[in-house]
Protein backbone atom coordinates (compact mmCIF):
# COMPACT_ATOMS: atom_id res chain seq x y z
CA UNK A 1 0.00 0.00 0.00
CA UNK A 2 2.09 2.88 -1.19
CA UNK A 3 1.01 6.31 -0.08
CA UNK A 4 1.18 9.04 -2.67
CA UNK A 5 -0.39 6.95 -5.41
CA UNK A 6 -3.73 8.23 -4.24
CA UNK A 7 -4.20 10.87 -6.91
CA UNK A 8 -3.36 8.82 -9.98
CA UNK A 9 -6.06 9.13 -12.60
CA UNK A 10 -7.23 5.61 -13.38
CA UNK A 11 -8.70 5.37 -16.87
CA UNK A 12 -9.54 1.71 -16.39
CA UNK A 13 -11.98 2.71 -13.65
CA UNK A 14 -13.47 5.41 -15.88
CA UNK A 15 -13.81 2.79 -18.62
CA UNK A 16 -15.51 0.32 -16.26
CA UNK A 17 -18.14 2.91 -15.30
CA UNK A 18 -18.61 4.05 -18.90
CA UNK A 19 -18.95 0.46 -20.14
CA UNK A 20 -21.64 -0.25 -17.56
CA UNK A 21 -23.67 2.84 -18.54
CA UNK A 22 -23.27 2.02 -22.21
CA UNK A 23 -24.39 -1.59 -21.75
CA UNK A 24 -27.32 -0.46 -19.59
CA UNK A 25 -28.64 1.84 -22.35
CA UNK A 26 -28.18 -0.78 -25.05
CA UNK A 27 -29.87 -3.44 -22.95
CA UNK A 28 -32.93 -1.42 -21.98
CA UNK A 29 -33.27 -0.54 -25.69
CA UNK A 30 -32.88 3.17 -25.05
CA UNK A 31 -30.39 3.49 -27.92
CA UNK A 32 -32.65 1.54 -30.27
CA UNK A 33 -35.73 3.60 -29.39
CA UNK A 34 -33.99 6.95 -29.82
CA UNK A 35 -32.31 5.86 -33.08
CA UNK A 36 -35.70 4.80 -34.45
CA UNK A 37 -37.24 8.13 -33.50
CA UNK A 38 -34.42 10.07 -35.16
CA UNK A 39 -34.52 7.92 -38.31
CA UNK A 40 -38.30 8.15 -38.59
CA UNK A 41 -38.35 11.93 -38.22
CA UNK A 42 -35.47 12.42 -40.65
CA UNK A 43 -37.23 10.33 -43.31
CA UNK A 44 -40.63 11.92 -42.72
CA UNK A 45 -39.18 15.39 -43.04
CA UNK A 46 -37.12 14.48 -46.10
CA UNK A 47 -40.15 13.07 -47.97
CA UNK A 48 -43.06 15.08 -46.61
CA UNK A 49 -41.37 18.24 -45.37
CA UNK A 50 -42.53 20.14 -48.46
CA UNK A 51 -46.16 19.05 -48.16
CA UNK A 52 -47.30 22.44 -46.89
CA UNK A 53 -46.09 23.99 -50.13
CA UNK A 54 -47.98 21.35 -52.10
CA UNK A 55 -45.14 19.01 -53.00
CA UNK A 56 -44.34 15.54 -51.76
CA UNK A 57 -41.05 13.76 -52.23
CA UNK A 58 -37.39 14.57 -51.77
CA UNK A 59 -36.57 18.26 -51.58
CA UNK A 60 -33.23 20.00 -51.62
CA UNK A 61 -30.92 18.89 -48.84
CA UNK A 62 -30.66 22.47 -47.58
CA UNK A 63 -34.42 22.64 -47.09
CA UNK A 64 -34.47 19.21 -45.46
CA UNK A 65 -31.66 20.17 -43.09
CA UNK A 66 -33.43 23.42 -42.19
CA UNK A 67 -36.60 21.50 -41.31
CA UNK A 68 -34.65 18.84 -39.45
CA UNK A 69 -32.85 21.57 -37.49
CA UNK A 70 -36.14 23.03 -36.29
CA UNK A 71 -37.21 19.61 -35.10
CA UNK A 72 -33.87 18.56 -33.59
CA UNK A 73 -33.76 21.76 -31.55
CA UNK A 74 -36.71 20.47 -29.54
CA UNK A 75 -36.01 16.77 -29.62
CA UNK A 76 -32.27 16.40 -29.04
CA UNK A 77 -32.04 18.53 -25.87
CA UNK A 78 -35.06 16.72 -24.40
CA UNK A 79 -33.58 13.31 -25.08
CA UNK A 80 -30.16 14.29 -23.72
CA UNK A 81 -31.70 15.75 -20.54
CA UNK A 82 -33.79 12.62 -20.01
CA UNK A 83 -30.70 10.49 -20.53
CA UNK A 84 -28.56 12.25 -17.95
CA UNK A 85 -30.74 13.75 -15.24
CA UNK A 86 -30.60 10.75 -12.90
CA UNK A 87 -26.98 9.77 -13.57
CA UNK A 88 -25.91 10.71 -10.05
CA UNK A 89 -29.10 11.38 -8.12
CA UNK A 90 -30.56 8.06 -9.28
CA UNK A 91 -27.57 6.19 -7.88
CA UNK A 92 -27.91 8.17 -4.67
CA UNK A 93 -31.58 7.23 -4.29
CA UNK A 94 -30.85 3.57 -4.93
CA UNK A 95 -28.12 3.67 -2.28
CA UNK A 96 -25.46 2.61 -4.78
CA UNK A 97 -23.65 5.95 -4.70
CA UNK A 98 -22.32 5.38 -1.17
CA UNK A 99 -21.04 2.01 -2.24
CA UNK A 100 -19.37 3.40 -5.35
CA UNK A 101 -17.71 6.16 -3.35
CA UNK A 102 -16.42 3.60 -0.84
CA UNK A 103 -14.55 1.84 -3.65
CA UNK A 104 -11.08 2.88 -4.80
CA UNK A 105 -12.52 5.17 -7.47
CA UNK A 106 -12.25 8.95 -7.35
CA UNK A 107 -15.48 10.86 -7.59
CA UNK A 108 -14.19 12.64 -10.68
CA UNK A 109 -13.44 9.30 -12.36
CA UNK A 110 -16.95 8.14 -11.51
CA UNK A 111 -18.57 11.23 -12.98
CA UNK A 112 -16.42 11.32 -16.12
CA UNK A 113 -17.08 7.60 -16.64
CA UNK A 114 -20.81 8.18 -16.34
CA UNK A 115 -20.69 11.07 -18.79
CA UNK A 116 -18.60 9.18 -21.34
CA UNK A 117 -20.81 6.08 -21.17
CA UNK A 118 -24.00 8.10 -21.62
CA UNK A 119 -22.36 10.25 -24.31
CA UNK A 120 -21.39 7.11 -26.22
CA UNK A 121 -24.98 5.84 -26.06
CA UNK A 122 -26.28 9.20 -27.23
CA UNK A 123 -23.70 9.30 -30.03
CA UNK A 124 -24.62 5.83 -31.22
CA UNK A 125 -28.35 6.65 -31.22
CA UNK A 126 -27.78 9.95 -33.06
CA UNK A 127 -25.38 8.58 -35.66
CA UNK A 128 -27.37 5.41 -36.32
CA UNK A 129 -30.70 7.27 -36.32
CA UNK A 130 -29.81 10.10 -38.68
CA UNK A 131 -27.33 7.85 -40.50
CA UNK A 132 -30.08 5.36 -41.37
CA UNK A 133 -32.05 8.18 -42.92
CA UNK A 134 -29.05 8.90 -45.10
CA UNK A 135 -29.32 5.55 -46.89
CA UNK A 136 -32.43 6.34 -48.97
CA UNK A 137 -31.44 10.02 -49.27
CA UNK A 138 -27.82 9.62 -50.33
CA UNK A 139 -28.45 8.95 -54.02
CA UNK A 140 -30.11 12.35 -54.38
CA UNK A 141 -27.23 14.22 -52.74
CA UNK A 142 -24.13 15.71 -54.27
CA UNK A 143 -20.95 16.35 -52.32
CA UNK A 144 -22.03 19.74 -50.97
CA UNK A 145 -25.40 18.40 -49.86
CA UNK A 146 -23.66 15.52 -48.10
CA UNK A 147 -21.49 18.00 -46.21
CA UNK A 148 -24.63 19.91 -45.13
CA UNK A 149 -26.28 16.75 -43.89
CA UNK A 150 -23.20 15.43 -42.09
CA UNK A 151 -22.69 18.82 -40.48
CA UNK A 152 -26.26 18.64 -39.26
CA UNK A 153 -25.71 15.18 -37.75
CA UNK A 154 -22.42 16.20 -36.16
CA UNK A 155 -23.80 19.40 -34.66
CA UNK A 156 -26.92 17.56 -33.42
CA UNK A 157 -24.57 15.25 -31.56
CA UNK A 158 -22.70 18.23 -30.09
CA UNK A 159 -26.03 19.76 -29.06
CA UNK A 160 -26.93 16.50 -27.33
CA UNK A 161 -23.58 16.36 -25.56
CA UNK A 162 -24.04 19.94 -24.31
CA UNK A 163 -27.45 19.16 -22.83
CA UNK A 164 -26.17 15.86 -21.45
CA UNK A 165 -23.47 17.85 -19.68
CA UNK A 166 -26.15 20.12 -18.18
CA UNK A 167 -28.21 17.10 -17.19
CA UNK A 168 -25.26 15.59 -15.33
CA UNK A 169 -24.74 18.91 -13.55
CA UNK A 170 -28.40 18.94 -12.51
CA UNK A 171 -28.01 15.37 -11.32
CA UNK A 172 -25.11 16.24 -9.01
CA UNK A 173 -26.93 19.30 -7.62
CA UNK A 174 -30.40 17.81 -7.05
CA UNK A 175 -31.39 16.31 -3.72
CA UNK A 176 -33.73 13.76 -5.23
CA UNK A 177 -34.93 12.44 -8.54
CA UNK A 178 -38.14 14.45 -8.52
CA UNK A 179 -36.28 17.73 -8.21
CA UNK A 180 -33.79 16.65 -10.86
CA UNK A 181 -36.70 15.93 -13.21
CA UNK A 182 -38.14 19.36 -12.53
CA UNK A 183 -34.82 21.07 -13.09
CA UNK A 184 -34.26 19.17 -16.36
CA UNK A 185 -37.68 20.20 -17.67
CA UNK A 186 -37.02 23.78 -16.60
CA UNK A 187 -33.71 23.77 -18.48
CA UNK A 188 -35.43 22.47 -21.59
CA UNK A 189 -38.11 25.15 -21.43
CA UNK A 190 -35.55 27.79 -20.67
CA UNK A 191 -33.13 27.08 -23.46
CA UNK A 192 -35.49 25.81 -26.14
CA UNK A 193 -38.52 28.09 -25.69
CA UNK A 194 -38.08 30.93 -23.23
CA UNK A 195 -34.62 32.08 -24.29
CA UNK A 196 -35.52 32.77 -27.94
CA UNK A 197 -38.86 34.33 -27.03
CA UNK A 198 -37.20 36.64 -24.53
CA UNK A 199 -34.52 37.62 -26.99
CA UNK A 200 -37.10 38.28 -29.66
CA UNK A 201 -39.16 40.28 -27.20
CA UNK A 202 -36.21 42.46 -26.28
CA UNK A 203 -35.34 43.00 -29.91
CA UNK A 204 -38.86 44.03 -30.80
CA UNK A 205 -39.26 46.23 -27.72
CA UNK A 206 -36.03 48.05 -28.50
CA UNK A 207 -37.07 48.26 -32.17
CA UNK A 208 -33.77 46.72 -33.12
CA UNK A 209 -31.69 49.60 -31.81
CA UNK A 210 -28.24 48.51 -30.59
CA UNK A 211 -29.43 44.94 -31.05
CA UNK A 212 -27.17 44.06 -33.91
CA UNK A 213 -24.12 44.51 -31.72
CA UNK A 214 -25.05 42.15 -28.90
CA UNK A 215 -27.95 39.98 -30.03
CA UNK A 216 -25.84 37.63 -32.17
CA UNK A 217 -23.50 37.07 -29.25
CA UNK A 218 -26.47 36.42 -27.00
CA UNK A 219 -27.28 33.53 -29.30
CA UNK A 220 -23.95 31.99 -28.39
CA UNK A 221 -25.19 31.82 -24.80
CA UNK A 222 -27.65 29.13 -25.81
CA UNK A 223 -26.38 25.85 -27.28
CA UNK A 224 -29.72 25.34 -29.04
CA UNK A 225 -29.25 28.63 -30.88
CA UNK A 226 -25.62 27.83 -31.66
CA UNK A 227 -26.90 24.63 -33.25
CA UNK A 228 -29.46 26.58 -35.26
CA UNK A 229 -26.85 29.06 -36.42
CA UNK A 230 -24.44 26.31 -37.44
CA UNK A 231 -27.05 24.64 -39.62
CA UNK A 232 -29.21 27.46 -40.90
CA UNK A 233 -26.98 30.48 -41.19
CA UNK A 234 -24.28 28.32 -42.65
CA UNK A 235 -26.46 27.65 -45.66
CA UNK A 236 -26.22 30.75 -47.82
CA UNK A 237 -29.38 29.85 -49.67
CA UNK A 238 -31.38 30.28 -46.50
CA UNK A 239 -29.53 33.19 -44.99
CA UNK A 240 -31.60 35.80 -46.76
CA UNK A 241 -34.84 33.99 -46.03
CA UNK A 242 -34.58 34.96 -42.39
CA UNK A 243 -33.93 38.57 -43.25
CA UNK A 244 -31.33 38.90 -40.59
CA UNK A 245 -28.25 38.79 -42.78
CA UNK A 246 -27.71 42.52 -42.92
CA UNK A 247 -28.18 42.95 -39.20
CA UNK A 248 -25.39 40.64 -38.21
CA UNK A 249 -21.84 41.71 -37.48
CA UNK A 250 -19.11 39.99 -39.46
CA UNK A 251 -17.32 37.02 -37.97
CA UNK A 252 -19.64 36.22 -35.06
CA UNK A 253 -20.77 33.10 -36.86
CA UNK A 254 -17.31 31.94 -37.90
CA UNK A 255 -17.07 28.15 -37.47
CA UNK A 256 -14.36 28.57 -34.82
CA UNK A 257 -16.64 30.82 -32.74
CA UNK A 258 -19.66 28.54 -33.10
CA UNK A 259 -17.89 25.27 -32.41
CA UNK A 260 -15.91 26.94 -29.65
CA UNK A 261 -19.17 28.03 -28.02
CA UNK A 262 -20.57 24.52 -28.37
CA UNK A 263 -17.43 23.00 -26.86
CA UNK A 264 -17.70 25.44 -23.97
CA UNK A 265 -21.31 24.31 -23.43
CA UNK A 266 -20.10 20.73 -23.24
CA UNK A 267 -17.10 21.32 -20.99
CA UNK A 268 -18.34 24.03 -18.61
CA UNK A 269 -21.39 22.29 -17.04
CA UNK A 270 -19.41 19.06 -16.71
CA UNK A 271 -16.55 20.97 -15.11
CA UNK A 272 -18.99 22.57 -12.69
CA UNK A 273 -20.47 19.15 -11.91
CA UNK A 274 -16.98 17.77 -11.22
CA UNK A 275 -16.23 20.66 -8.91
CA UNK A 276 -19.57 20.26 -7.12
CA UNK A 277 -19.25 16.49 -6.80
CA UNK A 278 -15.78 16.49 -5.21
Amino acid sequence: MSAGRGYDWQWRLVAAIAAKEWRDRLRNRWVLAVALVFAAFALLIAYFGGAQSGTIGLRSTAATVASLTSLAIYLVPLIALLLGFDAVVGERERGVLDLLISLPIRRAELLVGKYLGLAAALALATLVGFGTALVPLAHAMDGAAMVLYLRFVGSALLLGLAFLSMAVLVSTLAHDRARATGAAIALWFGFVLVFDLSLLGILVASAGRYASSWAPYALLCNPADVFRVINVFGADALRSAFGLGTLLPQGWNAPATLYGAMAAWIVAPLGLALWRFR
Partner: protein
Amino acid sequence: MQTGECGLNAAVVELAGVGKRYGATAVVRNVDLCCGKGEVVGLVGHNGAGKSTLFKMMLGIVAADEGELRLFGEPVRGRGFRDVRRAIGYLPESIALYDNLSGLETLQFFARLKFADPAGCAALLDRVGLGHAMRRAVREYSKGMRQRLGFAQALLGAPRLLLLDEPTNGLDPQAIHAFYDVLDELKRGGTTVILSSHLLAEIQSRVDWLAIMASGRLVARGAVTSLTATADLPALAWLLPRDDAQARVFEALSAAGFVPLREDDGSLRFAVAPARRIALLRTLAWLADALIDYTLTEPTLEDVFLRHQRAGALPEQRA
Protein backbone atom coordinates in the same frame (compact mmCIF):
# COMPACT_ATOMS: atom_id res chain seq x y z
CA MET B 1 -6.54 -2.58 28.08
CA GLN B 2 -10.29 -2.77 27.73
CA THR B 3 -12.00 -4.18 24.67
CA GLY B 4 -12.39 -1.55 22.00
CA GLU B 5 -9.67 0.74 23.29
CA CYS B 6 -6.51 1.46 21.37
CA GLY B 7 -3.47 -0.26 22.80
CA LEU B 8 0.11 -0.34 21.63
CA ASN B 9 -0.62 -2.80 18.81
CA ALA B 10 -1.49 -1.31 15.46
CA ALA B 11 -5.26 -1.27 15.19
CA VAL B 12 -7.20 -1.84 11.98
CA VAL B 13 -9.78 0.77 12.92
CA GLU B 14 -8.95 3.75 15.15
CA LEU B 15 -11.57 6.39 15.91
CA ALA B 16 -10.85 9.16 18.38
CA GLY B 17 -13.40 11.77 19.41
CA VAL B 18 -15.36 11.38 16.19
CA GLY B 19 -18.43 13.58 15.78
CA LYS B 20 -20.86 14.56 13.06
CA ARG B 21 -23.75 16.98 12.99
CA TYR B 22 -26.37 17.67 10.38
CA GLY B 23 -27.48 21.23 10.97
CA ALA B 24 -28.30 21.54 14.65
CA THR B 25 -28.59 17.79 15.21
CA ALA B 26 -25.55 15.87 16.42
CA VAL B 27 -25.90 12.41 14.90
CA VAL B 28 -22.57 11.07 16.17
CA ARG B 29 -20.86 12.38 19.29
CA ASN B 30 -17.36 11.86 20.60
CA VAL B 31 -16.95 8.23 19.55
CA ASP B 32 -13.71 6.45 20.45
CA LEU B 33 -13.31 3.00 19.01
CA CYS B 34 -10.50 0.62 18.16
CA CYS B 35 -10.71 -2.74 16.43
CA GLY B 36 -7.83 -5.15 16.06
CA LYS B 37 -6.96 -7.67 13.40
CA GLY B 38 -9.35 -10.60 13.14
CA GLU B 39 -11.91 -9.16 15.55
CA VAL B 40 -15.62 -9.46 14.84
CA VAL B 41 -17.41 -6.50 16.38
CA GLY B 42 -21.15 -5.99 16.63
CA LEU B 43 -22.35 -2.40 16.46
CA VAL B 44 -25.84 -2.24 17.92
CA GLY B 45 -28.28 0.55 18.54
CA HIS B 46 -31.78 1.71 17.79
CA ASN B 47 -32.68 3.22 14.42
CA GLY B 48 -31.07 6.62 14.12
CA ALA B 49 -28.46 5.88 16.80
CA GLY B 50 -25.73 6.88 14.35
CA LYS B 51 -24.47 3.46 13.24
CA SER B 52 -24.78 4.06 9.49
CA THR B 53 -23.27 7.54 9.76
CA LEU B 54 -20.34 6.07 11.68
CA PHE B 55 -19.80 3.56 8.87
CA LYS B 56 -19.97 6.30 6.27
CA MET B 57 -17.41 8.38 8.15
CA MET B 58 -15.08 5.38 8.42
CA LEU B 59 -15.26 5.08 4.63
CA GLY B 60 -14.85 8.78 3.94
CA ILE B 61 -18.28 8.92 2.27
CA VAL B 62 -19.30 11.52 4.83
CA ALA B 63 -16.73 13.87 6.33
CA ALA B 64 -16.46 13.88 10.12
CA ASP B 65 -16.86 17.29 11.73
CA GLU B 66 -14.51 16.44 14.54
CA GLY B 67 -12.13 13.74 15.68
CA GLU B 68 -9.66 11.49 13.95
CA LEU B 69 -10.36 8.41 11.88
CA ARG B 70 -7.66 6.02 10.73
CA LEU B 71 -8.03 2.71 8.95
CA PHE B 72 -4.89 0.57 8.74
CA GLY B 73 -3.06 3.61 10.11
CA GLU B 74 -4.06 5.77 7.14
CA PRO B 75 -6.21 8.88 7.74
CA VAL B 76 -9.64 8.54 6.13
CA ARG B 77 -9.99 11.09 3.30
CA GLY B 78 -6.20 11.38 3.17
CA ARG B 79 -4.09 10.99 0.05
CA GLY B 80 -3.14 7.40 0.69
CA PHE B 81 -6.66 6.21 1.51
CA ARG B 82 -7.45 5.17 -2.04
CA ASP B 83 -5.14 2.19 -1.66
CA VAL B 84 -6.69 1.36 1.70
CA ARG B 85 -10.10 1.18 0.02
CA ARG B 86 -8.97 -1.86 -1.92
CA ALA B 87 -8.67 -3.71 1.38
CA ILE B 88 -12.16 -2.76 2.60
CA GLY B 89 -15.45 -4.45 1.86
CA TYR B 90 -18.62 -2.45 2.49
CA LEU B 91 -22.27 -3.41 2.43
CA PRO B 92 -24.57 -0.38 2.80
CA GLU B 93 -27.78 -0.69 4.77
CA SER B 94 -30.23 -0.50 1.92
CA ILE B 95 -29.04 -0.95 -1.60
CA ALA B 96 -30.82 -1.54 -4.88
CA LEU B 97 -28.29 -2.92 -7.35
CA TYR B 98 -28.68 -2.68 -11.09
CA ASP B 99 -31.82 -4.46 -12.30
CA ASN B 100 -30.62 -4.76 -15.88
CA LEU B 101 -27.43 -6.64 -15.05
CA SER B 102 -27.17 -10.29 -14.07
CA GLY B 103 -25.75 -11.21 -10.69
CA LEU B 104 -22.47 -12.18 -12.33
CA GLU B 105 -22.26 -8.96 -14.36
CA THR B 106 -23.00 -6.90 -11.25
CA LEU B 107 -20.19 -8.56 -9.38
CA GLN B 108 -17.78 -8.25 -12.31
CA PHE B 109 -18.58 -4.55 -12.54
CA PHE B 110 -17.70 -3.99 -8.88
CA ALA B 111 -14.64 -6.26 -9.22
CA ARG B 112 -13.22 -3.98 -11.91
CA LEU B 113 -13.76 -0.94 -9.69
CA LYS B 114 -11.96 -2.68 -6.85
CA PHE B 115 -8.99 -3.94 -8.88
CA ALA B 116 -10.11 -7.49 -8.12
CA ASP B 117 -9.96 -10.29 -10.69
CA PRO B 118 -13.39 -10.58 -12.39
CA ALA B 119 -12.58 -14.25 -13.03
CA GLY B 120 -13.14 -15.01 -9.36
CA CYS B 121 -16.69 -13.70 -9.33
CA ALA B 122 -18.45 -16.96 -10.18
CA ALA B 123 -16.76 -18.75 -7.28
CA LEU B 124 -17.71 -15.90 -4.96
CA LEU B 125 -21.36 -16.16 -5.99
CA ASP B 126 -21.21 -19.88 -5.25
CA ARG B 127 -19.84 -19.06 -1.84
CA VAL B 128 -22.85 -16.92 -0.93
CA GLY B 129 -25.28 -19.43 -2.43
CA LEU B 130 -26.12 -17.59 -5.65
CA GLY B 131 -24.23 -19.87 -8.02
CA HIS B 132 -27.47 -21.20 -9.54
CA ALA B 133 -28.81 -17.69 -10.28
CA MET B 134 -25.67 -15.89 -11.40
CA ARG B 135 -26.84 -15.45 -14.98
CA ARG B 136 -30.32 -14.24 -14.08
CA ALA B 137 -31.11 -10.53 -14.10
CA VAL B 138 -31.00 -8.92 -10.66
CA ARG B 139 -34.54 -7.68 -11.32
CA GLU B 140 -35.71 -11.28 -10.77
CA TYR B 141 -33.87 -11.65 -7.46
CA SER B 142 -35.70 -11.87 -4.13
CA LYS B 143 -34.79 -9.49 -1.32
CA GLY B 144 -32.62 -12.12 0.32
CA MET B 145 -30.82 -12.87 -2.95
CA ARG B 146 -30.08 -9.18 -3.45
CA GLN B 147 -28.69 -8.99 0.06
CA ARG B 148 -26.46 -11.99 -0.65
CA LEU B 149 -25.28 -10.36 -3.87
CA GLY B 150 -24.45 -7.25 -1.86
CA PHE B 151 -22.51 -9.40 0.58
CA ALA B 152 -20.60 -11.08 -2.27
CA GLN B 153 -19.73 -7.61 -3.53
CA ALA B 154 -18.30 -6.73 -0.11
CA LEU B 155 -16.12 -9.85 -0.24
CA LEU B 156 -14.47 -8.87 -3.55
CA GLY B 157 -10.71 -8.55 -3.50
CA ALA B 158 -10.21 -10.51 -0.25
CA PRO B 159 -10.82 -7.55 2.08
CA ARG B 160 -8.95 -7.24 5.37
CA LEU B 161 -11.72 -5.11 6.84
CA LEU B 162 -15.45 -5.64 6.34
CA LEU B 163 -18.01 -3.00 7.27
CA LEU B 164 -21.46 -4.53 7.05
CA ASP B 165 -24.52 -2.39 7.75
CA GLU B 166 -27.42 -4.67 8.76
CA PRO B 167 -26.04 -7.54 6.65
CA THR B 168 -28.69 -10.11 7.55
CA ASN B 169 -31.67 -7.92 6.68
CA GLY B 170 -34.07 -9.92 4.55
CA LEU B 171 -32.19 -13.21 4.92
CA ASP B 172 -33.96 -16.41 5.93
CA PRO B 173 -32.58 -18.35 8.93
CA GLN B 174 -30.66 -20.75 6.70
CA ALA B 175 -29.01 -17.89 4.81
CA ILE B 176 -28.19 -16.14 8.09
CA HIS B 177 -26.46 -19.32 9.24
CA ALA B 178 -24.49 -19.51 5.99
CA PHE B 179 -23.60 -15.83 6.33
CA TYR B 180 -22.05 -16.33 9.76
CA ASP B 181 -20.18 -19.39 8.52
CA VAL B 182 -18.51 -17.22 5.88
CA LEU B 183 -17.79 -14.64 8.58
CA ASP B 184 -16.12 -17.31 10.76
CA GLU B 185 -13.91 -18.31 7.83
CA LEU B 186 -12.91 -14.68 7.25
CA LYS B 187 -12.16 -14.19 10.92
CA ARG B 188 -9.84 -17.21 10.87
CA GLY B 189 -8.09 -15.60 7.92
CA GLY B 190 -7.49 -12.46 9.99
CA THR B 191 -10.21 -10.24 8.50
CA THR B 192 -11.63 -7.64 10.87
CA VAL B 193 -15.42 -7.34 10.71
CA ILE B 194 -17.70 -4.64 12.05
CA LEU B 195 -21.36 -5.41 11.55
CA SER B 196 -24.36 -3.47 12.69
CA SER B 197 -27.62 -5.05 13.67
CA HIS B 198 -30.67 -4.55 15.78
CA LEU B 199 -31.17 -8.32 16.05
CA LEU B 200 -29.18 -8.75 19.23
CA ALA B 201 -30.16 -12.32 19.89
CA GLU B 202 -28.80 -13.23 16.48
CA ILE B 203 -25.40 -11.61 16.77
CA GLN B 204 -24.61 -12.11 20.45
CA SER B 205 -23.10 -15.55 19.96
CA ARG B 206 -21.33 -14.53 16.76
CA VAL B 207 -19.29 -11.48 17.72
CA ASP B 208 -16.19 -11.09 19.86
CA TRP B 209 -17.52 -7.96 21.43
CA LEU B 210 -20.28 -5.41 21.12
CA ALA B 211 -20.39 -1.65 20.89
CA ILE B 212 -23.72 -0.15 21.87
CA MET B 213 -24.75 3.20 20.42
CA ALA B 214 -27.54 5.45 21.66
CA SER B 215 -28.31 8.96 20.42
CA GLY B 216 -25.00 9.18 18.58
CA ARG B 217 -22.89 8.13 21.56
CA LEU B 218 -21.03 4.91 22.22
CA VAL B 219 -22.64 4.06 25.56
CA ALA B 220 -21.11 0.68 26.25
CA ARG B 221 -18.71 -1.79 24.75
CA GLY B 222 -17.30 -5.13 25.72
CA ALA B 223 -17.80 -8.86 25.45
CA VAL B 224 -21.38 -10.03 25.74
CA THR B 225 -20.69 -11.59 29.15
CA SER B 226 -19.10 -8.46 30.57
CA LEU B 227 -21.89 -6.26 29.22
CA THR B 228 -24.41 -8.55 30.85
CA ALA B 229 -22.46 -8.34 34.12
CA THR B 230 -22.19 -4.55 34.07
CA ALA B 231 -25.87 -4.19 33.26
CA ASP B 232 -26.57 -5.98 36.62
CA LEU B 233 -29.96 -7.19 35.45
CA PRO B 234 -31.96 -9.79 37.39
CA ALA B 235 -32.85 -13.21 36.03
CA LEU B 236 -36.47 -14.33 36.27
CA ALA B 237 -37.27 -17.45 38.29
CA TRP B 238 -40.43 -19.51 37.89
CA LEU B 239 -41.33 -22.33 40.30
CA LEU B 240 -44.19 -24.83 40.30
CA PRO B 241 -44.66 -26.20 43.86
CA ARG B 242 -46.60 -29.36 44.65
CA ASP B 243 -50.16 -28.57 45.72
CA ASP B 244 -49.56 -29.64 49.32
CA ALA B 245 -46.32 -27.62 49.61
CA GLN B 246 -47.36 -24.21 48.27
CA ALA B 247 -47.33 -22.42 51.61
CA ARG B 248 -43.99 -23.96 52.59
CA VAL B 249 -42.30 -22.93 49.36
CA PHE B 250 -43.69 -19.40 49.56
CA GLU B 251 -42.50 -18.94 53.12
CA ALA B 252 -39.05 -20.40 52.48
CA LEU B 253 -38.52 -18.04 49.54
CA SER B 254 -39.70 -15.04 51.50
CA ALA B 255 -37.44 -16.00 54.38
CA ALA B 256 -34.50 -16.20 51.98
CA GLY B 257 -35.21 -12.61 50.90
CA PHE B 258 -36.96 -13.22 47.57
CA VAL B 259 -40.27 -11.58 46.70
CA PRO B 260 -42.40 -14.26 45.01
CA LEU B 261 -45.65 -13.46 43.21
CA ARG B 262 -48.30 -16.18 43.16
CA GLU B 263 -49.90 -16.92 39.79
CA ASP B 264 -53.43 -18.32 39.30
CA ASP B 265 -52.08 -21.77 38.52
CA GLY B 266 -50.20 -21.84 41.82
CA SER B 267 -46.79 -21.20 40.33
CA LEU B 268 -44.47 -18.51 41.66
CA ARG B 269 -42.48 -15.86 39.83
CA PHE B 270 -39.73 -13.60 41.13
CA ALA B 271 -36.62 -11.67 40.16
CA VAL B 272 -33.15 -12.91 41.08
CA ALA B 273 -30.39 -10.33 41.20
CA PRO B 274 -26.98 -11.57 39.93
CA ALA B 275 -25.58 -11.50 43.48
CA ARG B 276 -28.45 -13.67 44.76
CA ARG B 277 -28.16 -16.55 42.31
CA ILE B 278 -26.25 -18.87 44.65
CA ALA B 279 -28.62 -18.06 47.49
CA LEU B 280 -31.47 -19.18 45.21
CA LEU B 281 -29.65 -22.42 44.41
CA ARG B 282 -29.28 -23.15 48.11
CA THR B 283 -32.98 -22.49 48.78
CA LEU B 284 -34.08 -24.63 45.84
CA ALA B 285 -31.89 -27.53 46.99
CA TRP B 286 -33.60 -27.42 50.35
CA LEU B 287 -37.05 -27.27 48.67
CA ALA B 288 -36.33 -29.95 46.05
CA ASP B 289 -38.92 -32.44 47.35
CA ALA B 290 -41.62 -29.71 47.29
CA LEU B 291 -41.21 -28.71 43.63
CA ILE B 292 -42.61 -30.16 40.41
CA ASP B 293 -40.71 -27.91 37.99
CA TYR B 294 -38.71 -24.69 37.73
CA THR B 295 -37.05 -22.40 35.16
CA LEU B 296 -34.54 -19.55 35.41
CA THR B 297 -34.71 -17.11 32.53
CA GLU B 298 -31.54 -15.09 31.96
CA PRO B 299 -31.88 -11.46 30.94
CA THR B 300 -31.72 -11.30 27.14
CA LEU B 301 -29.23 -9.17 25.34
CA GLU B 302 -32.20 -6.98 24.43
CA ASP B 303 -32.69 -6.26 28.13
CA VAL B 304 -28.98 -5.58 28.52
CA PHE B 305 -29.04 -3.37 25.48
CA LEU B 306 -32.05 -1.37 26.63
CA ARG B 307 -30.47 -0.95 30.03
CA HIS B 308 -27.23 0.45 28.54
CA GLN B 309 -29.14 2.54 26.10
CA ARG B 310 -31.17 4.15 28.87
CA ALA B 311 -28.03 4.74 30.92
CA GLY B 312 -26.41 6.32 27.87
CA ALA B 313 -29.36 8.58 27.23
CA LEU B 314 -29.38 9.92 30.80
CA PRO B 315 -26.56 12.48 30.59
CA GLU B 316 -28.27 14.03 27.60
CA GLN B 317 -31.52 14.39 29.49
CA ARG B 318 -29.70 16.07 32.34
CA ALA B 319 -28.08 18.46 29.90
